[in-house]
């Protein structure tokens, strides 16, 4: 995406017409409606430091007097395994585990190309595997 935006910026120089700003995030930034499955599900989640913390694997809905509200994002194999074909639903938990991290919607700062959170991944219990692998690599003498 950034490549095409840079291309558009370059074209402005040649033709003098307007171009999309490189830091633009599209109309979703200002719209007050969005499609939950199209624009949130399976999108990347980044924490307050822009560290990737995985994908939105499912979305929890709660019933309130106003109607259903989005109460949390569910991240982890336990959230996406139910979406697999039946046979894989039996195998996948044995291989990948069934951990699910529930991120309350209050922690969501912005819905754009990625879902930006207000806290760090560590504070929300996200990216545990990444941190474990990082710690293991840092102990290796050649790293």
């Amino acid at each position, binding site marked *: 995406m950034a490549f095409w935006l840079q291309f558009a910026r370059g074209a402005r120089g040649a033709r003098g017409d307007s171009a999309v700003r490189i830091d633009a995030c599209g109309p979703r930034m200002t719209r007050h409606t969005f499609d939950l499955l199209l624009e949130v599900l399976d999108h990347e989640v980044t924490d307050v430091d822009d560290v990737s913390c995985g994908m939105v694997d499912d979305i929890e809905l*709660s019933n309130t007097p106003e109607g259903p509200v989005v109460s949390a994002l569910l991240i982890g194999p336990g959230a996406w395994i139910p979406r697999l074909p039946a046979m894989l639903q039996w195998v996948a938990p044995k291989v990948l585990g069934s951990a699910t991290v529930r991120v309350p919607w209050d922690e969501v700062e912005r819905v754009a190309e990625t879902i930006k959170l207000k806290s760090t991944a560590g504070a929300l219990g996200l990216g545990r595997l990444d941190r474990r692998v990082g710690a293991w690599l840092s102990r290796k003498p050649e790293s």
Partner: protein
Amino acid sequence: MAEPQARILASACAMELKKVVTADGRMLGRVFDLRCRWEPGARAPVVDQVVFGKLGLLERAGLRQFKPRSVHWYLVEAVRGDEVVVAASKR
């Protein structure tokens, strides 16, 4: 983390592909998306509309020029089993 006060209704994935039927039993299509309204900084997004039908599938595939059929949530009478029951239209 504290559980919300509200009762857990379902997950969004569980709502996907449910049949949308009217109270008098007419099938309208299948759920392809849930349209929400939300302002950053405000409370959690509220599900406003259920997007359904073949054009809903095309929109889900990223073809945004299509205007899929949708029904406001206040017209949803029940969510049971594999069905979302909406108020019967007079048309």
